């Protein structure tokens, strides 16, 4: 009986053992599968970084113009008192005018620069020489690493840069092991001695004072498990740690640990990994850390926020001493080294503010990126996105908008509003016309209040900013017809009239109902005369104007109504910038781009935005129009820019809508274009302020500061255009007696031939001409042939509604010439 009993017990035991073994085996396999799968497939969630352009330093450059020291601080360079020693240090001696910089290595697409020490020798703030301190040679130029505009985060704001094991100095690894797991290379995932030791210490202390987890266990906990403190979780952790050790090498585990470890907070963002922590707390890469700094970093792992050197320096120093002593005890360092490390001064480091420096631009960019990449990739794959954004110009743009709007509100208190959402707004975009690169973009006054990007999203009436499109269409018509109707000196009737279209009427009115009669094309544009412009539009036709607008780069719908000519169709500032950019680029279209390159975390290119160009406007027409727009700046609605101190060759145009709800200014030098819009989101009127009062001052200030330090350049006439000195009044070739002479641009072969007779002595002498405007009684729609010979001379029809008689004693053979050649 007893034998049967023990037999049953034995069978049950064996059954339980077998079942337990099977279940245990299955559990083990399940864990093993989980560990291997997740560990092997583990991808660090690294936010993508968006970079601005690198700063180029070369002889002749004023360091004040490029805000060199501000730029260095934004790049997290630390000013040191003595010699530069580590990457990221710089030193400046104002007496000798020497700047020494220890540049970090830079991996910009297409070119890589190793870390190097350079010196800038200054003379009155200008760089005289750039010298490589490593070999003493002079350099033509040097580039800093590009500045990070922002990072694209997922929901968890985690800062991390993944490092390879060999990139981490061995002393740092030793410090880490001394602090966290001295027998790391001896145990198999679990350190029993340490568990017992920790248990005993906790019992003696009566509370938890020491942990028994190895690095492997900590890694497992961070990778797979929750932070709950239960026996079950602990057992799973132990099992997984053993499995991990069985399948992966110690170095692989350590490398993962170095990248996974949490090391504090930077505002809302968590610092993960040894590289990111070294940069954040000490402004250095791990390889540049001193022994004391390494020890401190290793000591922080236990409680990162408690021992953070920037917040609790005393605690941090005490913790550092503990680690240093432990390292000395383990034989990792000598006693002298330990003593030196323990006495290292904990430098008061300036932690740079980490915030999005161009939020509207980043939103714009992100929308572009999301066309090609899922959000998950952008926020986790650690892409490097290089843009053309010029941080200096971006800061200027933000600054001029803030100051410009504040000034407007101070001068005109009625523009002030109660709530931030209703406040006066402005936006600015700056483009390099030749490349289409967006150099600066500010979409509004305050991103925190409104994320609406007015540059790309606000469809507003452009007002007179659209008029140059009409004039360009007229110049293109002239190119085809060569009848002299639309040359810069051609006369346009600026009087009230009614345009009949589709059984409707439209009567354009001038500003303050002031009309100028017969005016040149140049004056009509310079003074932004509505009636004259509308007449040109009527002559040219709305379809050609629309076609010209589309070729320039407008993409919004442009209804073919007469009011289109005066800027009634709604467009975005980005479109305006694009269109004027084509003009500035001699008629060559280049699409505006925010992205230059995208590379993966290893620097391999994924996407490159290459420069493509397309001739859309004849360069002669683009130049003639630019020349006319230079007149706007010289003596037209943009003249205030000159008064405000912007003296460079520039072309521009103001814009104001009928109800004063939009104020624009767009202007360009040969290599920089900027558009400024000012208005209320609610379309409230800007009192009686137009583009010249509201937007132009902001544009002017931006351009003055943006172009400072660069040599002024003039617009270069293409070979098909001839500049002729003409009398401003008559448009004929100027004589020495003409009081107002201007250089006028004409397509070759259409230059005036005759000299101005008005101001010549004895203007009625033989050979001279007298031009007599004659008002005809012909109906407005009746067209006089361009040239008719009358008894008095040659009857010239400049417009259907107006004629000019030239009395001439010229050789009769001249009468066979086209009339415009007589001028």
């Amino acid at each position, binding site marked *: 009986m007893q034998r049967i009993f023990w037999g049953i017990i034995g069978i049950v035991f064996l059954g339980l053992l077998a079942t337990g073994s099977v279940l245990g085996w299955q559990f083990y396999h399940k864990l093993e599968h989980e560990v291997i799968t997740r560990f092997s497939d583990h991808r660090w969630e690294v936010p993508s970084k968006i970079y601005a352009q690198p700063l180029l330093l070369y002889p002749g450059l004023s360091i004040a113009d490029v805000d060199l020291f501000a730029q260095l601080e934004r790049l997290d360079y630390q000013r040191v008192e003595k010699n530069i020693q580590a990457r990221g240090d710089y030193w400046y001696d104002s007496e000798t005018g020497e700047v020494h910089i220890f540049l970090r290595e830079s991996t910009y697409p*297409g*070119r890589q620069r190793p870390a190097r020490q350079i010196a800038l020798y200054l003379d009155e703030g200008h760089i005289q020489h*750039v010298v490589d301190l490593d070999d003493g040679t002079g350099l*033509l*130029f040097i*580039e800093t690493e590009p500045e990070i505009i922002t990072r694209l985060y997922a929901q968890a704001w985690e800062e991390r840069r993944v490092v390879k094991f060999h990139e981490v100095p061995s002393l740092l690894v030793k410090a880490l092991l001394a602090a966290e797991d001295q027998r790391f290379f001896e145990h198999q995932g679990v350190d029993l001695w340490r568990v017992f030791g920790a248990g005993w210490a906790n019992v003696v202390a009566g509370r938890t004072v020491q942990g028994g987890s190895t690095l492997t266990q900590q890694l497992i906990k961070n990778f797979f498990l929750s932070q709950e403190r239960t026996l079950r979780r602990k057992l799973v952790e132990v099992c997984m740690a053993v499995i991990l050790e069985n399948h992966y090498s110690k170095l692989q585990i350590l490398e993962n640990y170095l990248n996974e470890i949490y090391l504090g907070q930077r505002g809302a963002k968590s610092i993960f990994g040894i590289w990111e922590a070294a940069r954040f707390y000490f402004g250095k890469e791990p390889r540049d850390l001193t022994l004391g700094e390494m020890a401190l970093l290793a000591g922080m792992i236990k409680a990162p926020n408690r021992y953070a050197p920037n917040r609790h320096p005393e605690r941090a120093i005490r913790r550092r001493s503990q680690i240093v002593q432990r390292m000395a005890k383990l034989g990792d360092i000598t006693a002298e080294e330990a003593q030196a490390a323990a006495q290292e001064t904990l430098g008061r480091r300036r932690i740079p503010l980490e915030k999005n420096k161009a939020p509207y631009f980043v939103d714009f960019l992100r929308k572009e990126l999301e066309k090609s990449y899922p959000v998950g990739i952008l926020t986790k794959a650690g892409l490097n996105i290089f843009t053309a954004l010029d941080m200096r110009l971006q800061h200027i743009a933000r600054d001029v908008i803030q100051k410009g709007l504040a000034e407007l509100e101070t001068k005109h208190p009625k523009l002030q509003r109660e709530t931030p959402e209703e406040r006066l707004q402005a936006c600015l975009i700056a483009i390099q016309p030749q490349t289409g690169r967006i150099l600066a973009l500010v979409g509004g006054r305050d991103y925190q209040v409104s994320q609406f990007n007015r540059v790309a999203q606000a469809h507003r009436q452009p007002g007179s900013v659209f008029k140059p499109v009409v004039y360009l269409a007229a110049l293109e018509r002239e190119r085809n017809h060569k009848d002299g109707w639309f040359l810069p000196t051609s006369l346009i009737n600026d009087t009230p009239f009614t345009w009949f279209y589709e059984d409707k009427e439209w009567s354009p009115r001038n500003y303050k109902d002031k009309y100028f009669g017969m005016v040149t094309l140049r004056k009509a544009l310079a003074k932004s005369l509505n009636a004259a412009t509308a007449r040109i539009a009527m002559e040219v036709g709305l379809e050609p104007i629309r076609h010209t607008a589309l070729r320039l780069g407008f993409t919004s719908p442009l209804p073919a109504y007469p009011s289109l000519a005066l800027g009634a169709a709604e467009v975005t500032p980005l479109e305006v910038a694009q269109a004027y950019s084509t003009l500035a*680029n001699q008629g060559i279209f280049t699409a505006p781009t925010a992205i230059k390159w995208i590379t993966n975390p290893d620097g391999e290119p994924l996407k490159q935005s290459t420069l493509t160009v397309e*001739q859309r406007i004849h360069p002669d027409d683009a130049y003639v129009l630019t020349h006319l727009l230079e007149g706007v700046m010289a003596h037209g609605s943009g003249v205030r820019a000159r008064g405000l101190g912007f003296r460079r060759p520039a072309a521009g145009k103001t814009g104001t809508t009928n109800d004063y709800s939009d104020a624009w200014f767009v202007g360009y030098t040969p290599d920089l274009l900027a558009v400024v819009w000012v208005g209320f989101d609610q379309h409230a009127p800007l009192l009686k302020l137009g583009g010249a009062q509201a937007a132009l001052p902001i544009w002017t200030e931006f351009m003055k500061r943006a172009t400072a330090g660069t040599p002024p350049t003039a617009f270069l006439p293409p070979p098909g255009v001839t500049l002729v000195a003409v009398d401003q009044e008559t448009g004929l070739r100027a004589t020495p007696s003409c009081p107002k002479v201007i250089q006028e641009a004409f397509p070759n072969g259409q230059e005036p031939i005759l000299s101005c007779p008005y101001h010549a002595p004895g203007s009625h002498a033989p050979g001279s001409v007298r031009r007599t405007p004659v008002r005809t009684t012909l109906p407005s729609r009746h067209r006089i042939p361009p040239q008719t010979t009358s008894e008095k001379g040659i009857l010239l029809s400049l417009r259907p509604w107006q004629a000019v008689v030239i009395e001439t004693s010229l050789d009769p053979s001249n009468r066979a010439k086209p009339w415009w050649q007589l001028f």
Partner: protein
Amino acid sequence: MVAALLVLLIRPLLVWLAVCLIFLWTHGSQIVYAENGPFSSHPFGEENGKVETQENEGGGLASPGSLAEQASPLVPAPLRLSSQERVALRFVEQGRTAFGREHFARARILFERAIEIAPLQPYGYYFLGRMTFDQGDANQALAFLLKAELLLTQDNVDWLGETTCLQGAIHEDAGDYAAARLRYQRCLEFSPQNLRALSALARLPEDDAG
């Protein structure tokens, strides 16, 4: 009498020989610009990604062994250039070296960087035009070359000659002989001795439809 007869007999032979020589020369160098163009590659300029160079190297295309020395057009002397333009020329130089080694992606980056730094300098556009033509994009090449032409001042006749000559070659390659002839003729206005343009004009069929 005998001598005159000999001359009469030999003259067509000499003319024929000259035509053959010109034909061989032009077909060996005309269309395939990148291989044997006026700016064939030379050892100046590093390919190791370093963008810096020593100042005593002149910092531009006019330095010894550089583009200016071997090419018929001479770029403005460095003294006439601003610092920014000199830096841009350095990028052009490096881009050209990369182009010569058929590292097209890198060359493009460098040419574009040169344009970004000095957007009113024509040389980056010129080489982008050459490169895109080599890569088979004639329209883009013509647009780049037009831009280069617009930026070249009228006294820069050598470069204008090169640019217009290359435009002629592109048109010729596309079979647009009328346009090619116009560009070659334009080239001769700037550079009357340009042998490529001269030979091309001799070579092009008279009939535009051809």
